[in-house]
């Protein structure tokens, strides 16, 4: 874990004129980590990556790679390699020339480059395709050539800017696994950028979630999914039911919330808001669709259950999505696993939904991710 070269961002600000693209970002990325920046398009992910690779000078703050301040060091002098959003393969060069471009720059001989290209082609399972032009490869193959080209430079840190966004779904899922495997094999630090939370969660050791230039939360995929720090993170990562209300009572790490339309509900306070969330505050609490289960009697689950009527039901293959409306008119989504039963619910049923305390997170009210 600690072998690789780490990257630190210290109070990084990046401005384009008046516009602030990155606002006071501080991150500590461990050497050898697969670290992702996750956020909607336009939130400043590429800008951060460009600051790490050296194409852009921060307006304030520092970028450190392996503990060394990178101020004034150009992209060609940093131990990073960037894989561009559109890959930027050189269309007029053969695949093997593309892959070994960094060696060509250093003046390596053609035979040496050929040998290295063959090794890398084997690693990306494209043996014998070195003499093709990039235009003759499929999307996934181009993707792998771009990775090989970046790895050929033997960087300490590989920077990937939404490299899978151009691929179709199946290939994207396949490449996720492959990228993760490559990262584990080469053991260097990967900094990965994506707007796709599935990619971030499956591949990363740690994830930073960004909104409008601000890092809202940094943590493992689990921490971010289970204990989102802000309403934005809760609603951007995965699906969530949001209940708005006021804090009625705070007991240790728990809060009782008087929701606007679903009665009084209990939730744990997200770690970031402990000691901050006070009685009387506007709050939001989140329960994921899969955290609900059905019970016959609300009695045993006081404060952790609600009743609602089924409005609609959708079969998703591995699960059913059930859409309900509480007595107060609040729309709720729950997801029930498909375990081979006949239909479990039908439209018009009144159901009692309950959740476990650990699956409900409360925090001060804030802005949600817009769909």
């Amino acid at each position, binding site marked *: 874990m600690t072998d690789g070269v780490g990257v630190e961002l210290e109070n990084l600000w990046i401005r384009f004129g008046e516009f602030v693209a990155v606002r006071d970002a501080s991150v500590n990325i461990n050497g050898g980590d697969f670290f992702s920046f996750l956020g909607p398009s336009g939130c400043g992910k590429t800008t951060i990556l460009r600051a790490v*690779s050296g*194409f852009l000078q921060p307006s304030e703050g520092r970028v450190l790679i392996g503990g060394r301040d990178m101020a004034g060091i*150009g*992209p*060609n*002098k940093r131990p*990073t*390699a*960037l894989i*561009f*959003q*559109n890959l*930027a393969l*050189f269309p*007029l*060069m053969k695949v093997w020339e593309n892959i070994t*471009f*960094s060696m*060509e*720059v*250093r003046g390596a001989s053609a035979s040496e480059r050929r040998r290295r290209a063959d090794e890398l082609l084997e690693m990306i399972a494209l043996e014998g395709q070195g003499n093709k032009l990039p235009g003759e490869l499929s999307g996934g193959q181009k993707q792998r050539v771009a990775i090989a*080209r970046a790895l050929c*430079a033997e960087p300490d840190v590989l920077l990937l800017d939404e490299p899978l966004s151009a691929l179709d779904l199946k290939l994207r899922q396949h490449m996720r696994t492959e990228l993760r495997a490559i990262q584990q094999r080469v053991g260097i630090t990967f900094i990965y950028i994506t707007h796709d939370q599935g990619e971030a969660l499956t591949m990363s050791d740690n994830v930073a979630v960004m909104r409008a230039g601000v890092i809202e939360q940094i943590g493992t995929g689990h921490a971010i999914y289970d204990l989102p720090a802000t309403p934005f993170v809760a609603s951007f990562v995965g699906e969530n039911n949001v209940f708005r209300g006021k804090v009625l009572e705070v007991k240790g790490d728990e809060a009782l919330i008087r929701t606007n339309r679903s009665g009084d509900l209990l939730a744990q306070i997200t770690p970031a808001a402990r000691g901050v969330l006070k009685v009387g505050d506007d709050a939001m609490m989140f329960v994921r669709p899969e955290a609900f289960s059905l019970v016959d009697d609300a009695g045993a689950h006081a404060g952790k259950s609600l009743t609602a009527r089924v409005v609609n039901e959708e079969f998703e293959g591995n699960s059913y999505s059930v859409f309900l409306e509480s007595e107060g008119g609040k729309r709720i989504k729950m997801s029930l696993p498909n375990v081979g039963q006949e239909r479990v619910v039908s439209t018009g049923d009144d159901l009692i939904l309950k959740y476990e305390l650990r699956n409900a997170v409360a925090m001060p009210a804030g802005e949600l991710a817009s769909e």
Partner: protein
Amino acid sequence: MARPRLFAEYFRTNGRFLGITMMLLVGFWIIVLILLPQLSMLDFSFRYNLPPAEQGGPKDVYTLDNYRHLIYGAGGGEGSYNTVDLMVFGRTILAAMAVTVADLILCYPLAYYLGQSRGSGFVRLLVVLLIIPYWINEILRAFAFRIIFADGGIINAAMMGLGLIDQPIDFIRADIALYTGLGYAYILLMLFPMYNAIESLDRNQIEAARDMGASWVHIHRRIVIPHAKPGISSGMTMVFMLSAGALAAPQILGGPSSLWFTQLVYQWFNNSLNWQQGSAYAIVLLMASIAIVLTFMKIFRVNMGDIGK
């Protein structure tokens, strides 16, 4: 195999009426305006310059005399060469090449700058500023150069004013005015194809190369120039062809002792009224220019097909 599909595609997108009309117009353009005049020139070039009465008579036969004249001169004797005309020919070709290369060197940085700083309104303004002088007729521009480069012109005046020289330089006699004028006359034909080619280069490719440690020279040699090659070669072809075939600039800006080959052609047609001889000279210039362009395209591995892109 691709041919019938190409036609089908062409008619499908343009419709039958428009498709046929366009083909007729292009056909007319090529046959009537280009092919026929050139063919009759070619025919002329192999005939004797006869008085009208003898044309079509028994003496009107094909001959290589007109071509022989360029090489051996009026005497036609082997061993004595037409050095004057051959020198003019060689000088014209070499000077046109030099003008082409000079334009290339001048335009490349500009085309790169314009092409890569895309989108900004200022750049568009710069491009318009470059075009404006071309609203002025070529002959007027040549005369303007003559005025600038004259003994009492602003260049001499400025250099004398600064104390750089104490005698005016005869730019006309030294052919400096001519080369500058030619270079200026066709410079946009170099700039625009190159600008278009460079503009279409993905900026990320340059950054990717830089990220992998490439120097600027390496980036230009391996990424920018190969990408811009079709634009560079069409620019160079046009500038070379037009400079070698230019008439106005050499007439107006050329020194008294140095002729451009086109001026010889002009003299044969106009002063000597020997169209046959003039045609032969014109054909030689055309063929030599084409051969040179094709040779360079071969050396630099440029495909004809890429140029139209």
